[in-house]
């Protein structure tokens, strides 16, 4: 690959494929993550996000396809990649029967870091765990474990962070703090690839990719992704939304209905047809129909439904 691309792109992969048995887990994945960018990786459970991340950092070998990570070939130079990438696994994967300090110290030793004591002390200080350094890691709460994991995979000052659902099961305050930290790191020039299920987190990413059933369905900024689907959404407010939802199912132009509390989002690609159908059905008193911007969540639900359809049609 060219040196300019290597300088600008943290991840640059083309046509990655991975099978587990007869399951096609990742199909023709091509993706580019620029340096200093927070790249959100979205998709339903079992869509191949974790496998894709493992392919990119050399933990798995692709069946087909090629690419580079930080300018190093993902097939041949995984040793180089490992030294420069911080990988945070989906499941907490530090040693429960080691203390917090011992875990950090162990990681520092594995990366052969000079001035280990100072580095570990610094990480403990930043974490705010200096006083609890001698507690067993297994005794930490979910939020603290997640912070420890981030600190541990940041210890060797990686240029790229691969975070696999880092905020799953973490309370909102801790999630907010975590994202502030990510933005601080990105500002320092560190690239971040983060998978998530949370829409608010997706909106905080510079770029997004949506993957379902191993296929990349959309890529770009949040606006790009929304615009590319060319969807029209109407918000319906009022009484009897549940009945309306049932009535609208399968009607011309209606591709999906999503309830957000007291508001029903009705989405479709053909705007005039959708509007006509809505006018026909939503006749009850007190029902207000209003055209709104299609949200990222509407788009993702749409993408997921369509992906299922494709999968069924292909089978």
């Amino acid at each position, binding site marked *: 690959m060219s040196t300019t691309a290597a300088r600008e792109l943290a991840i640059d992969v083309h046509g990655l494929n991975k099978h587990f048995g007869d399951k096609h887990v990742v199909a023709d994945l091509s993706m580019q993550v620029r340096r200093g960018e927070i790249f959100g990786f979205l998709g339903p459970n079992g869509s191949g996000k974790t496998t894709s991340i493992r392919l990119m950092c050399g933990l798995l*070998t692709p069946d087909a396809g090629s690419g580079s990570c930080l300018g190093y070939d993902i097939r041949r130079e995984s040793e180089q990649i490992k030294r420069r990438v911080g990988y945070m696994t989906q*499941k907490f994967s530090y040693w429960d029967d080691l203390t917090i300090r011992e875990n950090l110290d162990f990681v520092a030793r594995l990366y052969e870091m000079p001035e280990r004591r100072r580095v570990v002390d610094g990480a403990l200080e930043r974490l705010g765990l200096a006083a609890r350094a001698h507690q067993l890691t297994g005794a930490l709460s979910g939020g603290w474990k997640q912070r420890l994991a981030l600190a541990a995979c940041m210890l060797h000052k990686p240029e790229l962070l691969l975070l696999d659902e880092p905020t799953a099961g973490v309370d909102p305050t801790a999630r907010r703090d975590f994202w502030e930290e990510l933005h601080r790191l990105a500002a320092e020039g560190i690239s971040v690839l983060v998978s998530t299920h949370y829409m608010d987190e997706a909106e905080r990413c510079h770029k997004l990719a949506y993957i379902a059933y191993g296929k990349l369905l959309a890529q770009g900024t949040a606006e790009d992704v929304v615009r590319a689907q060319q969807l029209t959404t109407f918000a319906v407010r009022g009484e009897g939304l549940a009945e309306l939802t049932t009535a609208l199912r399968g009607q011309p132009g209606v591709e999906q209905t999503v309830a957000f509390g007291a508001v029903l989002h009705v989405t479709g690609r053909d705007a005039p047809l959708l509007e006509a159908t809505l006018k026909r059905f939503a006749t009850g008193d007190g029902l207000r129909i209003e055209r709104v911007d299609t949200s990222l969540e509407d788009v993702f639900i749409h993408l997921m439904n369509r992906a299922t359809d494709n999968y069924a049609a292909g089978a």
Partner: protein
Amino acid sequence: MSAFSLLRWWAIVRKEFLQLRRDRVTFAMIVGIPIVQLTLFGFAINSDPRHLPTAVIGAGHSEFTRSLVAAMRNSSYFDIVAELPDEQAGRDALARGRVQFVLDVPADFTQKLVRGEKPAMLLEADATDPMATGMALGAVNPLVAAVAQKDLRGPLAALAAGAAPFEIRVHRLYNPEGITQYNIVPGLMGVILTMTLVMMTGLAMTRERERGTMENLLATPVRPIEVMSGKIVPYIAIGLIQATIILAAARWVFGVPFVGSAVALYLSALLFIAANLTVGITLSSLAANQLQAMQMTMFYFLPNILLSGFMFPFAGMPQWAQWLASVLPLTHFNRLIRGIVLKGNGWAELWPSIWPMALFTLIVMAIAMRFYRRTLD
């Protein structure tokens, strides 16, 4: 980039020791397994059982037969528990398992003896368990001969001189009294080392995989050889501790004589420990989870304990079983340790058992390296 980093390797070694220190159950097993097994095998299992219940028919007729019964009792093989009236009662007692032996002395035994007619007396044994009676039966003839030598004096001395039927000599080398512990206790060292070391190392790697920490290790620059050898080191120490516990028990609890060289013993033990650890690490790489690792350990452990000559005599097995057993390190280690402890063998005698173990270790280590997964594929 260095192929083998001492710093990273030492990181693994340190981590294993730290985790081991916190794992109370494993720690208890290190000390507990040798003690429990020594108690079970050392005290409970006895292939030379004594104090076997014995009944006597018609022994009260002469001083000679009374003297013979007393000698049998003194041999400690036989406990005379009953005097029975006739042959039928004797058979009955045997059938019901009340006694293991019945000694039937004919009424005219002493008269015939005095007349020089070489009379016979009958010792009936319950031989359902040959192991249980074999040793005792073997002890009878020398016993009778000794009694004859001692009691047939004066006018009867001529009879003693020509005592041809008693001409059976048992001469056992190394363990003249046939004390089972001399054989079992050193043999136990190999069994205990095999069981604990294969199992613990078998679990070591699968535990990392099951807890998800393997993914973390694989994501760091640490190399397979560093992880494997680093994980092995603490278990070498454990193996040596266990060997020392067993040796101390053999010497001071079971009174097994130690005639050989301690250096030779520890070097053999070290090689044997290495052989077992490579097996454990290989199983660890093959097994998908800790349960599978346990099952594989048992699969490896059973032929070892059954074929290695620990439980049954090696020479008694068919040819194919002997070949199979010759592959197993425990077979060779049993020969080594019995050779060193009981016979005081030197290097020349030990070498035929050393090289197969070393070869085994090298081959299995190659297999282990082949199967260690560098990636998560």
